[in-house]
């Protein structure tokens, strides 16, 4: 392929010199003319010293050091409010949440990092949250769940030290209790009945939920496979029955 065959479109002519068009900002374009081998060597040495002046300048001014002594400055280190480190549930002053199990966040999550399970026997309302499991190990911190939540239940907080020794501990249960939402709980007058409707949840119970889900899915798959197999057997039997007429029919004919 030669470039003769490719037509070059009409373009604005290139400027004669490099344009340093940054207004007041742009310095003069540094053009250093070639001044022979010996002159070149001297200019090289000079620019070497210019560079060294800058680096030594920083060495002399320790105030310009920007290094953070991380594990030592844990007390004072504060990350911005919006920093996306860990997904968290918004619980109000009473410890109630507003998650109605609408599953919008679960569907919006690009990598199935949110697993929501409902209570099998809801105490008060029709649907009640059992556990809201967030998997840190597959989360990409895209924040989509936070912006799509219609009730403002989720937020990201800056607890960034999330390393653990067992990766199973990276599946967190975010809700502190299994039970109805705040508005329902507030209608219950009796504090004991309120407490009875709420069942505490452990942050590290997430893995059990995932495993239960996997067992459930596997059982479902096995059942589906068995049903498919049964249907296939029935189909084959029907086909055979149609292809080979029963001997009585032959005799009759």
């Amino acid at each position, binding site marked *: 392929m030669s470039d003769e065959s490719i037509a070059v479109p009409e*373009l604005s002519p290139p400027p004669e010199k490099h344009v*340093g068009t*940054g207004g007041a900002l742009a*310095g003069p374009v540094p053009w250093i003319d070639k001044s022979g081998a010996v002159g070149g060597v001297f200019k*090289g040495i000079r*620019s070497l010293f210019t560079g060294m002046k800058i680096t030594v300048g920083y060495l002399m001014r320790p105030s310009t050091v920007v290094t953070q002594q991380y594990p030592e400055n844990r007390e004072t280190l504060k990350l*911005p409010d919006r920093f996306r480190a860990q997904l968290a549930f918004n619980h109000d002053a009473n410890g109630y949440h507003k998650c109605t199990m609408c599953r919008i966040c679960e569907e*919006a999550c690009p990598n199935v990092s949110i697993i929501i399970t409902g209570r099998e026997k809801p105490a008060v309302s029709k649907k009640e949250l059992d556990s809201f499991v967030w998997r840190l190990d597959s989360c990409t911190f895209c924040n989509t769940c936070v912006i799509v939540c219609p009730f403002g239940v989720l937020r990201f907080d800056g607890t960034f030290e999330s390393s653990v020794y067992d990766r199973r501990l990276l599946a967190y249960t975010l809700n502190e209790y299994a039970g109805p939402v705040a508005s329902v709980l507030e209608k219950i007058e009796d504090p004991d009945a309120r407490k009875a409707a709420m069942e505490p949840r452990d942050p590290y119970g997430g893995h059990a939920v995932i495993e239960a889900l996997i067992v459930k899915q596997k059982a479902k798959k096995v059942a589906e496979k068995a049903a498919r197999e049964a249907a296939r057997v029935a189909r084959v039997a029907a086909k055979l029955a149609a292809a080979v007429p029963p001997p009585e029919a032959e005799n009759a004919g």
Partner: protein
Amino acid sequence: MSVHVSTLQARISGESTASSPLSTEEYFVNMGPQHPSTHGVLRLVLRLDGETVREVVPVLGYIHRGIEKMGEHGNYRQFVHLVDRMDYLSALANNWAVTMVVEKAAKMETNERIEAIRTLVCELQRIQSHLLWWGVFGMDLGGFTPFFYGLRDREQICDIFEKTIGARLTMNYIQPGGVMFDIHPEFVKDVKAFLSYLKPKLVEYDALLTENVIIQERLRGIGRLSAARAIALGATGPVLRASGVAHDLRKSEPYGLYAQVDFDVPVGTDGDCWDRYWVRMEEIRQSIRIIEQLIDNIPEGKTFLVKPAAKIKVPAGIHYSHLETARGVLGVLLVSNGKESPYRIHCRTPNFNNLWCIGEMATGGRIGDLVAMLSSIDIVVPDIDR
């Protein structure tokens, strides 16, 4: 036009063209995929005759993640966060490219404030990307100090992003219909402080690297790329502009608020490594100009005109839109069948086309200059493979 296809094996076993009065022969060297100067997992197969490079064959696929295919299985909002991971140094521009095509196709409206914020953060990220490139370029040429200085100043932009966006690299900030958060109350103050910090630093950069005779001699006349070949190879961004083609989508097809701001498009003359260096240094200054014009004039308004829905429906058809990232033209082609997820989505990424210029630049040159040429293209490998 005919397309000539050859395998790597055929090229390696091709006839030797070694030219020397001595009995020499060509040899092959693998540069990468784990080479510190290839900026990621890029493998270059070099056909060498002594120190002269006869041929460069980029071999791709070491970081292919199938982002386009993954996009077909999710909805549009889910695809936006995937493109962060293509060219991670222009994550916001990538977000914007997808957002732009979805907004254009689904006829979503934005306001001036959203566009102003998008323009501002994208220009900040262009500076951030060029600062990182400057540091790495200095390191590839053998000076380790620029790397520290470039990263030190880039860190401040990352801090600004951290405050407003909550992430430093993969941000997922620009969303169809708006931006994810409003700017932080301290954003304007921080950006102004950063600009007044960066301007003297640019002078220092010039003293350290630009005006250094050793660097100039090292870069001038190396890796020339003519304007015709740059266009033929599909190069965009600073690589194309350094070859003397004043093509910048921010000027020719203004999006965001670029039509309202005053800036220049720096253009080189020779298309050598020095021109590419100079164009990028100049672009930092132009980005500063753009930010200075916008930072005090962010209009009031919402950051999402309507509450963001998890699912967006795009009318059936083929939609395309493109913009200028720090490395060139990023185009997104979207084929929709009217459903919630795209039928096919394709990204025309700048790095892929820019990479193939290396063959044109390096052939006939010396192997010692190859690293400088590769670094002057400023490639990000995940953007090539996707």
